[in-house]
Every structure is written in structure tokens, then in C-alpha cells.
């Protein structure tokens, strides 16, 4: 489930950070007498506990996580600052970094610099073993998340890496590099023409892995390039796509619709908000098929539900995940974050998908190739005019 956990996020970028003093709704939370117990417990632990006492921050995080869990919703949860930073980068589709990947080996963490990125330009070579990031020694037991957090930072800022390099004679030398971080982009869509086979050479294929801030722009670029290369039909592959930003899903569904509803959002107080398509499409009436599976969730399901309800695209694959709720991500004072389920959404025809998902128009049995089924389901040239 961890895949879906990150799933669906509504407008986190647009949401103002809340500060306790400024929050208008402070009094909405209970003023509870039970809270006095909380401090008694805190104090008694400090005073009497035999054993290692967790520090105040750890306890605070534990308290928040415990309290949040009581809400009984798997999508309402607390994220500590470090994972939060990675989550933010993932949804932004970019981060300040050095342009290298990390590989964990028995010997330690190895760097693989990407061409023309800051790490490579600074002189780091493929296979250099990371010893230190600024003043922090890197150990084999550290998690990749922990190391990534050390290496990443604002574009333009500098990070000092100490590495061990194995020389041709088998000797190792230690080197230090100062690398200026740059904006590193993480694409969410890869695309190509299916021109291995002349019969499918007019099909543009888009593999879409997450709804990040960059996704809409990437799709715009993808469709333009594919059309220039001769694509007249498209396959949008949403398998394994856990969702992402709501606004991005709406924009991307709109790319394929001229009018009508994309989704209906229903809040706790009963208010309904309809998201509607605007005139104009990326690829006019080009045939489109979406490929989905059990890990296509939330934003992916919004797109699939909208395009299917309007008859704009057929769904091929297997039953989707079924996540019909919307979360707000609030950044808290210390850069941790709180995901709160804030609404549920319905497809244009009013279908609630929570727990059930969307059933594809063409179900692909296990063992069959969903891509082949998608090609078969795509109206082809030979169908035109029939």
C-alpha cells in the first residue's frame, strides 16, 4: 500500500502554510480535559522511567502520529520532516541536487553521475564510493533517503562530497569535490512512437508514472513531438500510477475534453464543487486508450473516470485501485506534514469509486499483454469510415 499512500494530493502547493497563531479555526479543536493527562504522562516518563527516554521531538511525533491514527483513515497521516522533503520533491517533479544516482553495495554507497549534470561536471566518476557529505560520514547502514536528504539542497548552493576512487592499479585514493547543486528534473512521462511495427507506427505511447507539477507540461510536449513524428492515435499508460496532484489531473483530463464535468468533489459539510473541462484539446479527436491496473489510483482514476464517462477513451487493463478521497497536505511548523482526507470525489456520472475502482472496458486477463490489448482496442485506420 505504500505506493498509494503517496497517492492523491490536492493542491498542496496552493495551500497556505498554517501557523498556529494565525490559524482561524483554532477553537475548532477540542479543549479537552484529557490533555492534562497528556502532560502528566509526559512528566512521569521524564521523572520515573527506567530506560532510554525518547527526546521531546520524537515524543511529539509519536503523539501526533498516534492522534492522527485515531481518525481511522489510511490516507490521513503524519509525515516527519525528512520523508516530507522527499515527498515534496517527488510531487514537484524536480529538486535541487547534483545529478547522480546512488547504489548500495557491500563496499558502501556508490555514485553514478548522470551526463552533463553537476556531479559529472565537478569531476565525480562512475563508481566513486561516497565517504562523506559535508561533515557527515556516510555509513553502509544509512538509508538512501537519509543520504539523499544530505545531498539535496537549494539549487545554487554547494555541497562537499568526499569519495574513494579505485584506481587502475587497484589502489584507492580519497578525493574531495565541491559540487554546486542545480535543479534536477524528474520526468513523470516517457513517450515514444510504436514504430517497431508499421501497423502501429501511428500510435504515440505515453508511460505516465505520477501526477507531478511537471506532468501537464510534459504531456503537452509529448503530444506535440509525437504528432510531429506522425502519431494520430495515442495510448496513455497509467499502470502503477498512484496519483498525485488533483489540479494536474484536472488539467490533463481537460487536454482531451472540450466540455463537461471532470469530477465532482464533495466536502464534509456537503458542499459540492464541480471541475469542468474547457474548450480545446491537445490532439483534437485523436483516438485514445488508457491502460490501467490495480495500482492506478486516485488522480489516475480521476482521469480514467472522466475520459471514460465522456466516451473519450476506452479503459484497458484490470480493475483500478479505488481511491475516491482527496487529501490536503498541510506543512506544519517544522517542515513535517499532515495529510488530511478532506473530500471525496465522484466521476462525472456520479460514480463513487472508493474501495471498488473502475472496471476497464476491455479486461486483460493475467498473463496477457495489456499493451497488445490496448493496441487492439484502439480504433485504427482500417476502422475509419466504417
Amino acid at each position, binding site marked *: 500500500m505504500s505506493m498509494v499512500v503517496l497517492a492523491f494530493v490536492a493542491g498542496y502547493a496552493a495551500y497556505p502554510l*498554517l*501557523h*498556529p497563531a494565525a*490559524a482561524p*479555526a*483554532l477553537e*475548532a*479543536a*477540542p479543549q*479537552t*480535559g*484529557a*490533555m*492534562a*493527562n*497528556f*502532560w*502528566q*504522562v*509526559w*512528566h*512521569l*516518563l521524564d*521523572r*520515573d*522511567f*527506567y*530506560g*532510554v527516554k525518547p527526546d521531546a521531538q*520524537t*515524543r*511529539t*511525533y*509519536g*503523539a*501526533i502520529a*498516534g*492522534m*492522527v*491514527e*485515531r*481518525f*481511522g*483513515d489510511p490516507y*490521513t497521516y*503524519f509525515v516527519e520532516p525528512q520523508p516530507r522533503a522527499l515527498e515534496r520533491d517527488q510531487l514537484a517533479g524536480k529538486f535541487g541536487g547534483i545529478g547522480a544516482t546512488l547504489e548500495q553495495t557491500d563496499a558502501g554507497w556508490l555514485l553514478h553521475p548522470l551526463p552533463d549534470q553537476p556531479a559529472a561536471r565537478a569531476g565525480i566518476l562512475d563508481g566513486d564510493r561516497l565517504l562523506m557529505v559535508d561533515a557527515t560520514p556516510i555509513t553502509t547502514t544509512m538509508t538512501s533517503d537519509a543520504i539523499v536528504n544530505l545531498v539535496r539542497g537549494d539549487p545554487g548552493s554547494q555541497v562537499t562530497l568526499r569519495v574513494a576512487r579505485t584506481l587502475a592499479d587497484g589502489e584507492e585514493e580519497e578525493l574531495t569535490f565541491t559540487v554546486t547543486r542545480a535543479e534536477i528534473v524528474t520526468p513523470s512521462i516517457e513517450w515514444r512512437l510504436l514504430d517497431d511495427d508499421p501497423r502501429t507506427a501511428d500510435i504515440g505511447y505515453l508511460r505516465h508514472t505520477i501526477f507531478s507539477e511537471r506532468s501537464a507540461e510534459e504531456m503537452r510536449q509529448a503530444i506535440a513531438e509525437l504528432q510531429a513524428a506522425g502519431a494520430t492515435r495515442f495510448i496513455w499508460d497509467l499502470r502503477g500510477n498512484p496519483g498525485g496532484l488533483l489540479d494536474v489531473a484536472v488539467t490533463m483530463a481537460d487536454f482531451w475534453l472540450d466540455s463537461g464535468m471532470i469530477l465532482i468533489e464533495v*466536502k*464534509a459539510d456537503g458542499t459540492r464543487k464541480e471541475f469542468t473541462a474547457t474548450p480545446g484539446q491537445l490532439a483534437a479527436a485523436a483516438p485514445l486508450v488508457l491502460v490501467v491496473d490495480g495500482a492506478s489510483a486516485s488522480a489516475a482514476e480521476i482521469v480514467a473516470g472522466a475520459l471514460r464517462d465522456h466516451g473519450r477513451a476506452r479503459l484497458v487493463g484490470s480493475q483500478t485501485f479505488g481511491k475516491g*478521497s*482527496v487529501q*490536503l497536505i498541510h506543512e*506544519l*511548523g*517544522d517542515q*513535517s506534514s*499532515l495529510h*488530511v*482526507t*478532506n*473530500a471525496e470525489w465522484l466521476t462525472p456520472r456520479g460514480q463513487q469509486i472508493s474501495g471498488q475502482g473502475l472496471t476497464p472496458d476491455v479486461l486483460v486477463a493475467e498473463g496477457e499483454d495489456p499493451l497488445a490489448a490496448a493496441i487492439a482496442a484502439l480504433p485504427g485506420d482500417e476502422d475509419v469510415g466504417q
Partner: protein
Amino acid sequence: MNQPETHGQPIVTPKSNGWQPILITCLSLVVAALLFAGGLGIGFAAGKWGSAPVANGAEESNAGGDAAALRARFPLFWEAMDILYRDFYGELPDSDDAVYAAIRGVLSQVDDPNTSFMSPDEASYFRENLQGSFEGIGARVDWDMNFDTVRIVEPFENQPAWRAGIKRDDLITHVDGESIIGADLMSAIDKIRGPKGTSVRLTIVRLTEEQPFDVEVVRDRIEIPTIETDTVGGNIAYVRLNTFNENAGDLVRDAVKTALAQNPAALILDLRGNPGGLLRQAVEVASVFLPKGERVLIERYADGKEDIYVTEDEPMTTDLPMVVLVNEGSASASEIVAGAIQDMARGKLVGTTTYGKGSVQLPQTLSDGSILRVTIARWFTPADRTIDGEGLTPDVVVELTEEDRQAQRDPQLDKAIELLGGEVEPLPVQ
């Protein structure tokens, strides 16, 4: 802070793989109390054992103060709570429950399963259970974190669950067809318990069986006596203590006194399955068998302070040959007594390795009636051994198999009788 009325008496209970065993003052153990381990020494006279809490200079701040002060101290928590109560789509939890969940969240960061919290409801349920009128299936249970359901810790001998064939470590997944997986211990126990004479269908997962199966159990009134006495092996006095409640010391003393009047050749103290209870009672029970002034245990606190507990009463017998029966269900207070008797060479331990609970908890009743149990100390045997996580190794290891149980054989008791020179009774005719 305003220190609540501390019914604090150091108590010792087994630690756990999740089950927080038992108890103190339970005359009848039911499927329930058990959860709430040893807790509350309700109304215990505190005087002579000194007060356990060590106020080592922690500031007695106004922790229970007004909301503004709380917010100032804990802004992140309030920020999160405000957002949730404002924006959450779905049913809002009761605010007290949310705070109790926060307390449990804090305790989950403490690497100690014995430090635990009971909400007022749970605490009052526990107190009721201590009154002792239970009707249920007669098994000690707990919540298995791995399988997220109820696990049988110990079916009490000859009680309904035991008679129905339920075994230790069985997992209960459904009660009368209704799943309890992912529920919580309290609500599961509520479903399992019921009036005497009614029956309940339990779906059991036993790891040695491929398929889950149903067992029908007819509930009964569960009475587990604190103490049982007998004469075995011809002329050997037998005393079984099932829990270290507030009467345990007196009951053992009286039982031994009565037995001694019969001039027994030896004595067996059976602590098998005894999960412990009150520390003070462990010392009193040891006092029955060890010379006055003898060391029973050493307790060490977080601040390095050390308390040495010694026997304070005249013993009943210091030379009558003696064996203590123990098993993996003998925990905490049982291990204190058995450890002292072993260290002082007062008698041999026979059976299997004991549970291994070497920590001491202090239960504190908080202002709204909830209860916090905090591990405040570790204890060591008179020879300064720790048993935490290891248990006591018997001088003579004798297993008791499931087959023995079914056949009502007791090779551990037989070995004790043999060591004490008594006559081992022939096996019952099958």
C-alpha cells in the same frame, strides 16, 4: 504538576510479547483482566515499602495548566489537531480518545512494552474485573500484534476453554462468526465473555493446523483460587500459589503452618503459570521460607538509586526440604521468590525456564481516572543476577508436553516428589 493520588505500589508483572499479563488482586481470572496487567495496587498501604517514585529533581511544573500554556509548549501537536478537526472528511473521533491515542503514540516511542496506558474506561473495566465476578471462557488472552487479533496466553486448567481443547498460542479470529481481526482487545473480550451457561463459537487459527476451525465453548463462572493445598507423594505438603495478590503472603504462611502441623517430610511450592503481582507479596512469600533479614531482591532505579528488599517476618520453616515448581508462565513476582530460593540454596527449582520479567512498574492513577504504568526499575536476585529476557533456569529441567496434559500426567510434579524422596504415584490407567 499535581501528582495524582498514587496508588502506587511497585508491582511486578511479566513483560510481554504484547500481553500484559496479570495481575494482582484477581481471584478469578478471566479472559480479560489479563490485559491489564499487574497494574493497580488499589488501596495499598504504602508505608513500609517506601514510596517508589523517585522525584529526582524534575521540576514540578504546572503541566496540567491552561490551554494556552499547553499550546505554547506543544505547538506542533495543536497545529495538527486543529487542522484535523477543521478539515477532516469523515467521522471525528471523540476528543478524549484522540488525546489518549496521542498518549499511546508517545509511549510507542518508548522501547518498553511494560510502560503502558489505560484510559478511564479501560481502567474501570480492569477494576471491575478485580472484584472478581466473571463469567467467561477461562483463559488468559492478549492481543497479538503480528496477527492483529486475540491470542490465547493460557487456557486455565479444567476451565471451559481448556475443556473445549483450546491451547496456548491459539489465535481467535472470529467470535460467533464475526471477525475480530483488527479490532481491539477490549471489544474482542466483550464479545467472548458472556453469562454462564451460554455458548460461544470461536474460530481458531492454530499455526500447526492448515485450516482454521470452530470451537464451541460453554461459558462458566471462572474461579481461580489464589492458593490450593494438597498432600502428595505420601507425606509431602503441596502448596500452589496462582497469583501474588494482596493476600498471597498471608495465605502461603497459613497454608504452610497448617501443613507443618502434619509433620510433612518435605514441601513443594508450585508457581507454575503464576504471572506475578505485587512485589511486596513476593517478599512476604519468600519470608515464609528464608531466615529473617535475608536478601530477597535488589531493585535499581533509573537514577542509580538501589533498594534492597529483605525478609522481615519470622520464617515458618528454613530447613524442611523444598522444591519450587516453575514454568514459562512463572513470571515476575514468581521469579523473585524462585530466584531467592535458588540463590540461597533453600530448595531446587524443577520445571522449565521461567518467563524472564526483571522490571518493575509503578501504576499511577491520573486525574481523570486513567492509569499509567511506567517501568521504574529493574530487579536482581540476591546474588545480583538479572533474569530479564532470560528467565531462571531450573536446577532440574522437566518438560510437560501437551500429551502429558491430555493424559493428566504431571512429570514435573513427579520429579519434585522423586527428588524429595516421596512415592511417585503410578500413572493413571488409560
